[in-house]
């Protein structure tokens, strides 16, 4: 064996597979600390492929292991692949907005090729042969790709919009604990400047976002407009690759940056105040059935106030009585170019029954924390289904049942463990209850005594009830915004279904656990809304603004 060896020399003599094994037991920050000790170790750690592959493999949010070699082709090293994955991981998961009230649920997930994709699930009816027979309708919202020129530069961002268009931009920052996803315009300059977008008035933010999105719009070529975005079959590979190459070439040719002077001359009324928004607001009002609610925001804006969606008002003046807003002119002059950007931010948000209280004046999506099932909390996660029994199928006499997605989470209240089923998607023609309503809440510690009303399921098999819990289901209350509740029971059947039965009416909501990623792979893409509305739909609406397909869903069985 070698003679007396210590210090960096000893560490450098370590076989690479041992180093990889040690790496798999450390966090990235430990490896980076080791790389900062001396030149030789810095070189060894940064060049070690096995070390960073090990880090990718232990990162719980990594893409599936079989995709890592596929992704590696797009990065100079596993270190930079790891960095891409780590920095974007906070964006993975389910995001929502209060509007429209039928549901605005967006799932962000890794693509087959190196990318993060976000899809909106469209409020819809249950497919005639059940959810598994599909297809689930979805619309693309945005996608993020690594920057091929320089993997240390911000990732590339593409917002999707109506008419099969993409709108290139970049990812400005992702907070590790991001709970709000913001669509912004950033003004870049050579010298670091504070982010000004958040200090613009709502009207100015909307105006500059609309201007940039329109200006950077690129139509997707017809041969790629219908190309798959997720890999469902082997034959998808070539189209996925073609689509990715086109996006990268497009971003190289049109990076989505607009010269400041061009922006200034086009937004020539930059000195205008929010009152000029009335024309645009009018257009919105004419289009939306719930325009009165939308109008409230505009009135607040005119009065210099902002309002959160559940009604909490905050003044836009600071304690010295000075306006918090900066002018659009000052914002544009803070940089040399402007462009679309996506920012993952952490904000202090209050929640009510597992639903975040959202801002009415931010172009934002809000994270829905998804609890993992564990002992004693087995039903946490995403469930989908319809009203009626037998489950999962539209019957001949009642076709077109509304599909519901519910997020089930546990919350402790007054020493009791509650299971809360939050509505995140409702496929009715006109909304029944506010988005984010608790469709039912059951007490985990209180078994139900009522019997399950049905003996057999749709296949004439005997139904065996494993567990039953006492609780309350949603009911009409004081207007739309404040639903009431009526007693009922949650039944868990032998085949993993859950069914909430309202005691008096015997109305039943039957649910099965969802694998949204798999449903999306087999799903059907529908056209996206115009880009800004496709990201955050800020106007109150009670109908399906995402799809104009005919529907006649039924409420009860």
């Amino acid at each position, binding site marked *: 064996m070698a003679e007396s060896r210590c210090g960096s020399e000893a560490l450098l003599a370590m076989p690479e597979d041992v180093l990889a094994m040690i790496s798999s037991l450390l966090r990235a920050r*430990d490896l980076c*600390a080791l790389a900062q000790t*001396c030149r030789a170790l810095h070189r060894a750690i940064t060049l070690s492929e096995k070390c960073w592959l090990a880090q990718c493999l232990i990162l719980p949010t990594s893409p599936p292991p079989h995709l890592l070699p596929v992704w590696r082709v797009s990065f100079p090293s596993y270190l930079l692949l790891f960095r891409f994955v780590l920095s974007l991981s906070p964006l993975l998961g389910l995001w929502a907005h209060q509007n429209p009230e039928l549901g605005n649920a967006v799932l962000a997930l890794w693509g087959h090729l190196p990318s993060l994709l976000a899809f909106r699930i469209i409020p819809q009816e249950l497919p005639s042969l059940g959810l598994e027979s599909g297809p689930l309708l979805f619309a693309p919202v945005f996608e993020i790709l690594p920057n091929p020129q320089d993997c240390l530069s911000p990732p590339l961002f593409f917002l999707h919009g109506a008419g099969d268009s993409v709108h290139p931009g970049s990812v400005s920052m992702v907070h590790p604990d991001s709970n709000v996803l913001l669509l912004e315009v950033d003004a870049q300059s050579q010298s670091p400047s504070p982010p000004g977008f958040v200090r613009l008035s709502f009207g100015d933010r909307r105006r500059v976002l609309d201007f940039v999105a329109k200006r950077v719009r690129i139509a997707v070529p017809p041969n790629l407009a219908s190309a798959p975005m997720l890999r469902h079959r082997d034959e998808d590979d070539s189209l996925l690759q073609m689509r990715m190459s086109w996006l990268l070439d497009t971003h190289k040719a049109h990076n989505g940056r607009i010269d400041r002077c061009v922006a200034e001359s086009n937004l020539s009324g930059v000195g205008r105040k929010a009152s000029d928004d009335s024309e645009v607001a009018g257009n919105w009002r004419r289009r939306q059935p719930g325009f009165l609610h939308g109008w409230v925001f505009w009135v607040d804006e005119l009065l210099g106030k902002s309002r959160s969606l559940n009604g909490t008002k905050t003044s836009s003046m600071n304690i010295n009585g000075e306006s918090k807003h900066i002018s659009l002119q000052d914002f544009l002059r803070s940089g040399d170019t402007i462009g679309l950007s996506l920012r993952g931010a952490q904000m202090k948000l209050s929640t009510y029954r597992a639903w975040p209280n959202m801002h009415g004046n931010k172009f934002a999506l809000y994270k829905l924390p998804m609890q993992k099932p564990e002992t004693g909390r087995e039903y946490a996660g995403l469930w989908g289904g319809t009203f009626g029994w037998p489950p999962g199928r539209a019957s001949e006499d009642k076709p077109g049942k509304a599909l519901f997605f519910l997020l089930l989470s546990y919350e402790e209240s007054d020493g009791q463990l509650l299971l809360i089923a939050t509505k995140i998607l409702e496929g009715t023609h006109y909304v029944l209850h506010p988005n984010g309503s608790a469709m039912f809440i059951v007490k985990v510690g209180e078994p139900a005594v009522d019997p399950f009303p049905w003996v057999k399921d749709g296949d004439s098999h005997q139904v065996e009830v494993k567990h039953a819990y006492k609780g309350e289901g949603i009911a009409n209350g004081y207007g739309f915004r404040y639903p009431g509740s009526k007693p009922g029971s949650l039944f868990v059947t032998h085949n993993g279904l859950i069914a909430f039965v309202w005691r008096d009416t015997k109305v039943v909501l039957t649910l099965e656990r969802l694998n949204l990623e798999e449903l999306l792979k087999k799903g059907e893409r529908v056209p996206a809304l115009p880009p800004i509305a496709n990201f955050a739909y800020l106007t109150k609406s009670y109908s399906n603004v995402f799809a104009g397909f005919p529907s006649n869903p039924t409420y009860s069985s």
Partner: protein
Amino acid sequence: MATIITKEQQEKEKMVTLVSSDSEKFVVEQKVAEKSHVIKMVMNCCGIESPIPVRRVKGDILKSILEYCEKHSKGEAQEVMEKWDKEYMDKAEKDLVFFHDLMLASHFLHIQELVDLIAVTFAGMLKMKSPEEIRQKFNINNDLTKEQEEHIMTTFGWAFQPI
């Protein structure tokens, strides 16, 4: 502990002689030597009659490794073994040169259980340490200029975000 045993015993059990790089001889049971995948292959190929040279491992390291292999060939209860492993590693990591050579030798001899144990111990020495603490622990000279340190900090800053 590698045991030197009598001729009678050697006849009773299947014994094998291993010779370290500094010519130290160790006579051990075949099942103990078999813990090393490399030695097992040599025994399968060349038999156990002649002494097997372990040229890349010094006597003190081979002795310690055989001590580990002997203990791990007895099939004792898991909690007994975990306690023993901990004491074995506590002793080994006191001398970093010895510890490092033990790691290289166990890797060379392909004793996966021991490589795993050493990797876990090694990772424990690095966890949650600052660059300066690691330098002190492993006696590393810092040859980075201030500019290089700043550059590294900039390029690795992302890793210091909590996951």
